């Protein structure tokens, strides 16, 4: 049994254009996702860190 892709990939890639700037939507999604994960890694509390801080 073959599994289909979650989204239809059977077409040329979509691109965003902004003046001289051009990038595929898939690359843009990955970059935005990296920024979101980076921000979340800084903002979200690490398990156990609060307990350790209150003990000290």
């Amino acid at each position, binding site marked *: 049994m*073959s599994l289909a892709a979650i989204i239809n990939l059977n077409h040329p890639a979509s691109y965003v254009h902004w003046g001289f700037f051009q990038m595929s939507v898939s690359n843009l999604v*990955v970059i935005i*996702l*990296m920024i979101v*994960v*980076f921000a*979340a*890694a*800084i903002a*979200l509390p*690490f398990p*156990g*860190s609060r307990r*350790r801080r209150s003990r*000290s």
Partner: protein
Amino acid sequence: MSAAGKPSWTARVREAGVRAMPPERLLPDTQPAYMSSWIYVFGVLTIAALVIIIASGSVLGLKGPAWWHYTGVGHFFNSIHLWSVELFFFFMVIHLWGKFFMAAWRGGRSRTWMSGAIAFLISIAAAFTGYVSQQNFDAQWIATQAKDGLNSTGVGAFFNVLNFGQMYTYHVLLLPVVVIALVSAHILLVRRSGIVPPLPLGELAIHSPTADPTAPGATGSAA
């Protein structure tokens, strides 16, 4: 000890190794309190992705292009290899951002920073040679597009992206050896110098070499 009473070269190498990397630094059982943050997990996530890359790539290499193109299990391993590479770069870039913004080269850690930066650049070359080694139209398209750019730099004489055998050798042997060596050196340097502490608060403290408790000659103690 040799017959002349002088330590043999193996003893000298062993002693130098233990001096440079004491066992309690090589395999520590505690970690600094400031590491209680998600930003510190992206280095080890990058290494975990690299292990999956090497394991799935080894299977692909042993089975060959016909297997990874025409069988269900081959497609599966091909996808595992691709997505572990995607995650490798995803985690490595977040690790890079985190270390850049905490100025991780402080306190005598410049070699750690440089080994990581070079590993990142070599990894890009390793990924590129993988794209042109797929043995499909995608690989042909990438290779024919890349050849003009690479030839214009003068490397085309010994780095021919249209030569599958050459690209495959770079991808499965030469560049992985360099990446693994650099990552190993990077980890050993991290163990030797310790994880970089967060930046001290206040501009005066940032510019003071003694503000970094791990800097050579600093009076403070590391957390």
